[in-house]
């Protein structure tokens, strides 16, 4: 569908616009979760909607499991529930309903029911979020048949994806939104229209290396690509977007061209998005690889709280540039200067709580 957007928009504005649009377009839509009607309104994405749409923006007790079940029951009876979790970690309390019920209610009953609903899970990072306010759980949910898992990396992706989820897609969608992107402004005109709103996006064309990235790592990849371009390395960047249904052809076409693959995910590497992208290449044609795959993700530990530890826990722009340059040049002494300005890292440093 055609959507008209202002030339620049924050991630938060994209979410707020998507929420208002979903509510305005259908009386069947509800937004339900802890904090959806309070003065903070899920980081400003549901603010005041309860005044505009009385009875359909619903504050809840701290009962993630039953609230998710309530959404499933609403969905099979004609509602479109949008359920929010201000931290993805809280969504783990709803895993029985998401995995045993929402994901299976269509198949298990031979297609007698549809479960159209959207679960928004916000990934926290920075300002000492620690072990239980920071997890990127996409691969856990993407493992489950029946769940569609998306990780929008731009306001435009949010609008197109949520619009498609609400209007067209008749199943449960779990979306991981990255808290650190909420305040970032994006140019909205640089993205070519997509035919499949859930599909992977070719963010940048290049010939030397393929970077397959998710969520905020798409931004890191684009920044790394811009820097590397000044030093003769031409990166192709794929925003995987729908981690439960990666575009195999887009990945293989790209890796066939470049022969080199970096996977940059927001989560842990084992059994995750990195492993899945490697599975795609290994099953399709591992012979296209001219070098071993490089995977970037969180250190294999719960997230520490101390800033000095958090700084080395997450992959950042510098690590990304260094890893890509090493892979392309085939040596540690690759000759690409690591930038002194700290674009995204600066942002992280200046990012202050409270939430």
């Amino acid at each position, binding site marked *: 569908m055609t959507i008209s957007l202002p030339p620049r928009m924050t991630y938060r504005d994209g979410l707020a616009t998507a929420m208002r649009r979903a509510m305005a377009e259908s*009386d*069947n839509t*509800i937004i339900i979760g802890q904090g959806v009607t309070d003065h903070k309104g899920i980081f400003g994405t549901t603010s005041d909607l309860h005044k505009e749409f009385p*009875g*359909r923006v*619903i504050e*809840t*007790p701290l*009962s993630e*499991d*039953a*609230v*998710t*079940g*309530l*959404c*499933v*029951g*609403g*969905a*099979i*009876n*004609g*509602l479109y*529930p949008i359920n929010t979790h201000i931290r993805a970690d809280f969504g783990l309390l709803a895993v*029985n*309903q998401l995995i*045993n*019920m929402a994901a299976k*209610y*269509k*198949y*298990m*009953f*031979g*297609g*007698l*029911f549809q479960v159209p609903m959207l679960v928004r899970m916000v990934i926290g990072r920075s300002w000492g979020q620690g072990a239980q306010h920071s997890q990127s759980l996409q691969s856990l949910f993407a493992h489950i*048949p*029946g769940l*569609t898992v998306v990780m929008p990396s731009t306001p435009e992706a949010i609008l197109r994806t949520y619009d498609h989820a609400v209007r067209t897609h008749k*199943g449960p969608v779990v979306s991981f939104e990255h808290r650190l992107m909420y305040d970032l402004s994006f140019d909205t005109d640089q993205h070519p229209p997509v035919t499949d709103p859930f599909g992977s996006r070719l963010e940048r064309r290049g010939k030397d290396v393929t970077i397959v990235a998710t969520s905020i790592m798409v931004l890191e990849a684009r920044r790394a690509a811009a820097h590397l371009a000044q030093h003769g390395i031409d990166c192709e960047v794929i925003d995987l977007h729908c981690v439960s249904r990666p575009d195999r052809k887009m990945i293989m076409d790209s890796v066939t061209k470049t022969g080199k693959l970096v996977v940059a995910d927001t989560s842990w590497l084992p059994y995750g998005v990195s492993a899945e992208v490697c599975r795609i290449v290994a099953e399709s044609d591992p012979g296209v690889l001219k070098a071993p795959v490089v995977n970037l993700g969180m250190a294999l530990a719960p997230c520490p709280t101390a800033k000095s530890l958090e700084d080395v826990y997450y992959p950042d722009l510098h690590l990304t540039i260094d890893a890509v340059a090493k892979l392309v040049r085939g040596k540690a002494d690759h000759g690409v200067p690591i930038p002194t300005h700290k674009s995204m890292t600066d942002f992280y440093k200046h990012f202050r709580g409270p939430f």
Partner: protein
Amino acid sequence: MSRNDRYQELFRQALRIRLVEEKVIELYPSDKIQSPVHLSIGQEAVAVGVCEALRPEDAVYITYRGHAFYMAKGGPLPELMAELYGRRNGVSGGKAGSMHLAAPQVGVMGASAVVGSTISVAVGGAMANRILKKPGLSVVCFGDGATEQGTYHESLNLASLYGLPALFLCENNGLAVHASLAERQSYRILEHARSYGIETVRIDEGWDFLKIGDVTRQVTDAMRADGRPRVMEVMTCRYKEHVGPGEDFAAGYRSQAEVEAWMAKDPLCADTALVAELKPALDAEIDQAVAFAEAGELPGLDDLLTDVY
């Protein structure tokens, strides 16, 4: 119970469920039904009595021990049998089996094999009806064990807080698999439910479909008037083992004498004359359902990946 027309009709419905399940027991050694079966035998009167008071637009959310409620609410019998057989002409094309029965056209909104999982779903159904201005109550059936789940507590709170017409129907057979109430519960089910500001009612005579029907009608009439939830506990008795076609008194976890005392009050056991009168026609219907199932195609590769997303 007096043998009037209403008694005869509810008796017939309860007997129909029992005979279907006895057919399942008869067929089980043939391995034609290749899935776990949790039989309702002994508990049929609850489903029949409750569903007598329900309207077509009312929904029931049931459990893996769901044959009785599926049939009492009007789910088609041939498609049930074909589903047990894992055939394409089953109600869910063989993907559901015994544990996941549904027939949304008559308000059977699905069964879960994870205890307690449909409770909050039923509350969501009640919320949908309110927002979409549709008539109909949500009735959720669960066992005494389900009240031990956190989601039961969360769901009672949500239904009371939001003022939703959900009927929480606890079929209390005193057992969770093989564990007794005394081993599991430090609370009294209805006393606990009342602490949410929800009115409750208890029926001790779980064999008496007339009484269950009468009480359910009073309860549902009140719910239709005030839009509030209710919790209803019906004491009942599971005659067979937790899962499977047999009996397991030899295991020693419960008393056979107690079950026999219950059976003495169960009209399906006691009123042998009416059983004899009704059985031939019901047997004929069941045989037709079995024939329907046996004639069904097996689902195959073409069906494996349909209806996933």
